């Protein structure tokens, strides 16, 4: 299916909901009953390693994109649960556990072609890494849960794959480790154990690992997915109970659901929704 066919499928009337890999389907509340399910185009459209960008259908899985760019020593910094689609992780907008090193999901999307509530194909952003041509609709789309437009095709920024990538773990103060290391890729903490992902030149990785006193492990801990809380990085010190926290970032992964707070000035958010989807047909019921 191409983009035009996707726009025709979305059409101009009636409630619709975009379905990806359903790996984070619970985020933002249930979709109103009766919404018609639509799926975005799949497949890689264009990949030029020297540009460090990849263009793909929003229905492509993150793993497929990662494999394609990985063959050229690159990666896309998106959370990569099995089956998750690129459009899905962008619409949800929640970063994976490597955010400390690679930045938030919103910085990965360079250009989007999406279907508007009126059924039109709209381009947002541009094909280059650096671009300030007009207003930044791409950042508005990331995390919008498909409530202001349905992603059809996206251009993503790639990064070089590090020469070495190794997890370490042990009992140590994660905040002290954050201060001692230069740009680690991830620091996770469950209140007792600290896990650190170090990446880069092998000599640097070994040297940084020695500073932490941690020992190499297979990988990160199992991260609970039922709930998620967003804090200032230093507020993580006060955490108790069962959790896995991203040190230096402020995301807390929890084994129970958490109500998302209301944004400040909810009137502005309501006006965004009303401006882009006046009839409320895009993913009705979802609240970003």
């Amino acid at each position, binding site marked *: 299916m191409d983009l035009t066919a996707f726009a025709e499928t979305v059409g101009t009337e009636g409630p619709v909901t975009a379905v990806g890999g359903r790996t984070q389907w619970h985020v933002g509340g249930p979709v109103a009953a009766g919404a018609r399910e639509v799926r975005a185009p799949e497949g890689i459209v264009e990949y030029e390693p020297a540009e460090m960008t990849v263009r793909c259908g929003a229905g492509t899985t993150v793993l497929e994109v990662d494999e394609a760019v990985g063959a050229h020593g690159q990666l896309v910094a998106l959370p990569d649960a099995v089956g998750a689609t690129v459009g899905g992780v962008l619409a949800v907008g929640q970063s994976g556990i490597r955010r400390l090193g690679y930045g938030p999901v919103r910085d990965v999307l360079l250009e989007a072609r999406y279907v508007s509530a009126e059924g039109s194909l709209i381009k947002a952003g541009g094909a280059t890494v650096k671009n*300030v041509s007009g*207003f930044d609709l791409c950042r508005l789309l990331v995390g919008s849960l498909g409530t202001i437009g349905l992603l059809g095709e996206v251009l993503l920024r790639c990064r070089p794959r590090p020469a070495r990538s190794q997890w370490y773990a042990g009992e140590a103060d994660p905040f002290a480790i954050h201060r001692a290391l230069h740009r680690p890729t991830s620091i996770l903490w469950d209140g007792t154990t600290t896990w650190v992902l170090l990446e880069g030149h092998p000599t640097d990785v070994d040297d940084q690992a020695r500073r932490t006193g941690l020992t190499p492990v297979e990988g990160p801990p199992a991260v609970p997915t039922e709930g998620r809380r967003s804090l200032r990085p*230093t507020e993580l010190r006060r955490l108790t109970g069962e959790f896995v926290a991203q040190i230096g970032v402020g*995301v807390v992964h929890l084994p129970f659901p958490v109500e998302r707070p209301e944004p400040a000035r909810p009137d502005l958010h309501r006006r965004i929704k009303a401006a882009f989807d006046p009839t409320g047909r895009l993913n009705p019921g979802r609240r970003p």
Partner: protein
Amino acid sequence: MDTRLAADLRGALAPDRVRVNALELDLYARDASVISGRAEVVCFPLTTEEVQAAVRIARAHGRPFVPRGSGTGLAGGAVPVGDPVVIVTTKMTRVLSFDEDDRMAWVEPGVLNLDLSRAVAHLGLHYAPDPSSQQSCSVGGNVATNSGGPHCLLYGVTSAHVLAVEVCLPDGSLAQLGGLDAEPPGYDLRGAFVGSEGTMGIATRIAVRLTPDPPSVRTLLLDFTSVEDAAATVSAIIAAGYVPAALEMMDAEITRAVEDFVHAGFPRDAAAVLLVEVDGLPAGTAAAAQAVGEIGTAHGARTVRVAADEAERALLWKGRKSAFGAIARIAPNYYLHDAVVPRTRLVEVMGAVYEIARRYELVMMNVFHAGDGNLHPLIVFDRRTPGVMERVMAAGEDIITACIEAGGVLSGEHGIGLEKRDYMPLLFSAADLDAQARLRDVFDPDGVSNPTKVLPAGSRCGDLQRVPDGAWI
């Protein structure tokens, strides 16, 4: 002159911070572009409350307002159109707080970019976006234009370094967009505001992310006998999997001008030089520096000079960042363009750009962020030469067209402002522009915040054609 407007502003701010005399209005009639407008009154608030008061008074008198930082913008974004109240943030210069553990700071919009980095230097932190004008441009202005700079190749442009913005909306109310926590709820209004060029309100406080200083830095100067070899080296470095902190190119003309100005030892006979900086941990930095040198040599670099110490590094950067001062020795006026093309099209587009300069018999130089394909063709001229402005503007239009045809965009870091507003349809369809206009309307339904900027008239479906009177080039 509207004396009641000025009197109301004086009452709300202070008599000496509201200016209406002709000379001062002239100073604020333009920014660093070649475009001029006309301000009705210029005011200098000190606090968020005074910004709100100025906005409300402007509206009560039926006037638009124009936010302005240091006025270093190159696209006419701060040029006053429609006899507005110009609200200048240059007296709001306090770094309000910083948090070493959260690696962030709250600053007022008038804080200068370089002053912010200096204020946190003792913590081993800095503010990463570093426009060439960083000694004089303000953080508020950087937010308005989503500014870049040489080191944005690795670290990302302004939007990646702004956590939250307190904004005075065009109705005079306050809103905090974004937050200090990792994933603020709702739509990313912070992301929408950054780069909106003053059309969605005025930033009154900004929470910025601070970046740890790299433990190790290597700065290299590579010298080439052809622009093509230099450009091919840029592509080869990226293709080999290295993303340097900065990857800058200067062509022959600008290299000579800079060397005559700063005496940093730049080769006066080079066709092009690359200034490359790699940073990070020591082993990775050393390996990257070596690889960059080898790739350069393989592509015909005559010499690879590695800065021996911090003083030499600072001197090389001083050369790069004072390029626009250096050209004042050649001619009194310049027109600096800003366009981005895919990196792989750099050689071809540069050739086209030089050809355009030849066709219009103009002196053109290039000093730019080659690593992100961000070209800065610089036309140097004397405004007093009869007919020269027409040739400069025509050449500019041809450059924009050439970049768009190569798959590029209109601006990489300077913004659209007035300069490129009417070229937006080259990049966006009517439906695309309508979507951007809807976003603007959410913040500014009455079109009073920096009116006529960014979006061409008629962008909103059903929009009335508004002619920006008072603006001329």
